[in-house]
């Protein structure tokens, strides 16, 4: 049932460029699709595995820079850029994740946070590679079999195909035995050990996969913008991913997907000044953490359970 709805929704999204000619609306569509993928990747590591990772922002930035540099500096194609974005991020995640995951989840949160800041500083200060604050403008549009994805309408297809593929992969992963193991690690790690499962490879794999997917999403987004500079690593992106996951419900796959689409469109509807919008984001974060800590999906589940209990009584 859910899958049928998701399939219809995916096809409806595919039809967007046929319904409108407005670059503005299709631009929002591209952002919504990519942000949803990045939020779903954060959901894999935070919602399923229970590790709050702020490193997503760093992976997003590394992905963006890796794919831009592959094309501009090393003369590769956009597609190879995405592959490099994913591979480099997975490798970085393993290097950062291994020493950190040996400690406790407190240290993990703080190390990932510092990592995100480090990537921002490198993007700004390693001028020889990243061109510093000027950034890399005029990223060429992707080309496949002689077809140039030059307009927002054409680029939309790439974003659509990318996010459908990634979300399908994440869905398959999260509902598989591996996904259940990850949830078990989050809920009771000693019990998982007692079952003869070593949590470390699962945690590392989930961190690396989440990094690779976030990186590829950053790669697609940088080519959507057509320019990459240190602002690509603004903490705003991390806050957006976090709020999508928390409002949707950490650990709920469809909750995060729905809230990703909805919340990416929301800032466009609420056109306040940037500061005012961020204040509202902060308020939402604080209020949701107190009122419904498991997000809308968790709140709906709770309500359904209480109703069932009342009927039984």
């Amino acid at each position, binding site marked *: 049932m859910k899958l049928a709805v998701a399939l219809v929704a995916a096809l409806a999204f595919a039809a967007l460029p046929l319904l409108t000619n407005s670059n503005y609306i299709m631009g929002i569509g591209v952002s919504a699709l990519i942000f949803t993928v990045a939020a779903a990747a954060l959901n894999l590591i*935070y919602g399923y595995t229970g590790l709050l990772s702020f490193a997503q922002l760093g992976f997003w930035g590394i992905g963006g820079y890796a794919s831009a540099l592959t094309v501009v500096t090393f003369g590769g194609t956009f597609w190879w850029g995405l592959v490099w974005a994913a591979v480099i991020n997975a490798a970085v995640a393993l290097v950062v994740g291994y020493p950190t995951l040996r400690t406790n989840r407190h240290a993990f949160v703080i190390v990932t946070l510092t990592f995100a800041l480090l990537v921002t500083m490198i993007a700004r200060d390693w001028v020889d590679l990243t061109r510093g604050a000027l950034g890399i403008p005029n990223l060429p549009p992707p080309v496949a079999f002689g077809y140039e994805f030059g307009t927002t309408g054409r680029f939309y297809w790439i974003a659509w195909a990318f996010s459908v593929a990634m979300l399908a992969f994440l869905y398959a992963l999260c509902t598989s035995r591996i996904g259940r193991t990850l949830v078990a690690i989050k809920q009771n790690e000693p019990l998982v050990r007692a079952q003869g499962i070593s949590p470390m490879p699962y945690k590392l794999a989930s961190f690396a996969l989440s990094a690779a997917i976030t990186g590829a999403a950053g790669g697609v987004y940088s080519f959507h913008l057509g320019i990459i500079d240190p602002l690509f690593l603004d903490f705003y992106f991390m806050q957006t991913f976090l709020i999508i996951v928390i409002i949707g419900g950490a650990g709920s796959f469809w909750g995060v997907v729905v809230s990703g689409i909805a919340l990416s469109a929301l800032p466009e509807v609420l056109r306040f000044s940037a500061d005012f919008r961020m204040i509202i984001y902060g308020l939402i974060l604080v209020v949701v953490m107190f009122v419904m800590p498991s997000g809308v999906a968790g709140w709906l589940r709770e309500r359904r359970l209480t109703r069932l209990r009342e009927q039984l009584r």
Partner: protein
Amino acid sequence: MTIDAVYLLQLTLNGITLGLLYALIAVGLSLIFGVMEIINFAHGELLMLGAFAMAFALPVTGLLYWPALAAAILATMLAGLVIYELLLARLKPDEFERSILITLGLSIIIIHAMQYIFTATPRLVDTQYGFDGVDIGAIRIPWTRVIGAGAALVAFGGLYAMLRYTQFGRAMRAIAQNREAALMVGIRPRVVARNAVILAAGLCGLAGAAISPIQLVTPYMGQFLIFKAFALVIIGGLGNIPGAIVAAVALGLVENWIGGFFEIAWQEAAVFVIMIAVLFLRPDGLFKRGGMRVG
């Protein structure tokens, strides 16, 4: 490359003053973690509030340094009390991720509210000391830096004496070492936690007020420092106060030495490289967490 002794000494002295200011922030984080097992993400914003309070108090006091410093510390302690009563008091111990997300929300609200009200234009803060300084041979250190470092040292001395000899401090250590046993002998965790947050906020306010004549004051100034303070808390061992101080002063020195001889990017990367190396070698931090012992 020849190393000029005067230049090296200058870097070293700058490093120590910077490190002591880092330590003020990191100690507050450690204190709160020790008592409540949570991390206050909005700690950098307390520092920023302290710096702004200093910037506004100085013209009122006619550029007199000490009354303005006291006003800034009081203002941040008040902010700490409000934050505790409104948000942190509702958290249970070890709700770590929730504490981070809630205080992250708070930090977003404070930064952008300050930017909305006072704009992002950096402010230059002038004190009675201006750019006067003390001369040691060929080196000149501004009074504001000397006083900042001195005030930090006095604060650490006071904190040590308080944690070690007063009932107020013993209760904090008791909660950090064994929560249940502390409850059994009649210590109220809520009161102790509130005191710890106010105390940490005061230290942070001191750091912010002391930094304001040295650096430009902007709504974002807290964010850059807080990331480093987080790393310091990890390097020194979560909840370990002497560890945080040692790590902070060492980082201040290392950063200044690296900044003096290499490219600036390495200076910023140093803290992260050190943290990862420490986690590889000693996963619990350099100084193993000892339930907030002093001495």
